[in-house]
């Protein structure tokens, strides 16, 4: 594993990008790794683009601000346009298939288009598309133990949504499976 993994989660507000990042962050903390989670915040909170940067590291994290990424989870077109160029060579970029018009073009990174919404609809919960992607990502980049991701999920999900834990777990699993099937985008 790398010394640190610098991950960007980006999409529209409401697609769950911030909580994806938080789950990773919590899980990393459970594993006693160093971690930082930095949202972009703004009046754009209310729609528009939302993103967060997560750093998972085995060493103390100095700058929580990074401009180049090892991993990217992309849920809309503006985010792809913004972050594709910022990927480090050899990095991984995962996007939701139906959300993009123009696909990534870089060849020095791994790119995967995940049909997360489609799969989520199959689970009767469109909202868990993000968890499918997360499952996919963690399968491709096994930064964290699965059980810790589940623990983190419980932390991040508000109490009142705890009845949705099973379907979220299911979604993670779906993503993980998709990752097994998919070798390159």
């Amino acid at each position, binding site marked *: 594993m790398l010394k640190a993994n610098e991950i960007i989660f980006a999409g529209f507000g409401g697609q769950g990008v911030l909580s994806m990042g938080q789950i990773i962050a919590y899980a990393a903390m459970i594993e006693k790794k160093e971690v930082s989670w930095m949202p972009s915040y703004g*009046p754009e*909170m*209310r*729609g*528009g683009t939302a993103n967060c940067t997560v750093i998972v590291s085995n060493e103390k994290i100095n700058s929580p601000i990074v401009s180049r990424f090892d991993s990217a989870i992309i849920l809309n077109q503006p985010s792809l346009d913004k972050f594709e160029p910022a990927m480090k060579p050899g990095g991984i970029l995962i996007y939701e298939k139906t959300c993009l018009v123009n696909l990534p073009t870089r060849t020095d990174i791994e790119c995967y288009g995940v049909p997360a919404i489609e799969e989520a609809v199959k689970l009767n919960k469109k909202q868990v598309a993000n968890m499918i992607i997360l499952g996919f990502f963690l399968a491709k980049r096994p930064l964290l133990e699965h059980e810790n991701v589940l623990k983190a999920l419980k932390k991040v999900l508000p109490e009142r949504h705890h009845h949705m834990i099973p379907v979220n777990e299911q979604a993670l699993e779906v993503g993980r499976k998709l990752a097994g099937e998919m070798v390159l985008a």
Partner: protein
Amino acid sequence: MENEIQDNGLEIVYKKPSTLTDTPLHYCPGCGHSVVHRVLMEVVDELGIQDKTIGVAPVGCSVFAYNYMNIDMQEAAHGRAGAVATGIKRVLPDKYVFSYQGDGDLAAIGTAETIHTVNRGENILMVFINNAIYGMTGGQMAPTSLEGMKTATSPYGRDVKLMGYPLKITELLAQLPGALYVTRQSVHTPNAVRKLKKAVKASFEYQKLNEGTCFIEVVSNCPSGWKQTPVQTMKWIEENMFPKYPLGDIKVPKF
């Protein structure tokens, strides 16, 4: 885009006013701010006063109003739109000046400026968007939030004895001799929008008379802050806002 009169015998009976720019509005889907912007610009169009109108935007969701209204505008510090508008109107007494403010802006931090602007009878129009919440900063309690209302800063519901009562600032202002025309309107139905527009038009016309301040409260919505769909908010306005903030003219000029 379209021709005024179409080949097929249809004529345009409603289109976007030309004084509204083409910049996409940054507001959340279904937000009343946008409607009020449009109504204001319809009136400016209709009265042909684009070149004589100066607007003052607040700090609040409508901070970017100047991106949408194709008129000269100033962006005021939080709560100070009344003072800024006063500054403009005093040095340009022949222009139409209006301020546009949210409930946090006008009725919390800007209370003093609001009251004294109206008390001086500044010859301006003040448009007051009451959505019972601080929209821009993420849904905190506003002075106009209703009793028991849950917001980001009243998570257990507004406890009026600790946090203050819903402030009916419009009723207070109506009592000031400087207030010429004070009315409460809404945007929850097409008819409400029609009435709002009438009030705006009247206010601009009164402004020529130099007889005092016109003040329009618009009972509006905040789908994001209220955590409701836009359609739900309109119902909620009727059921919850109107009992506290009833519509209608509160003070009309006597001539």
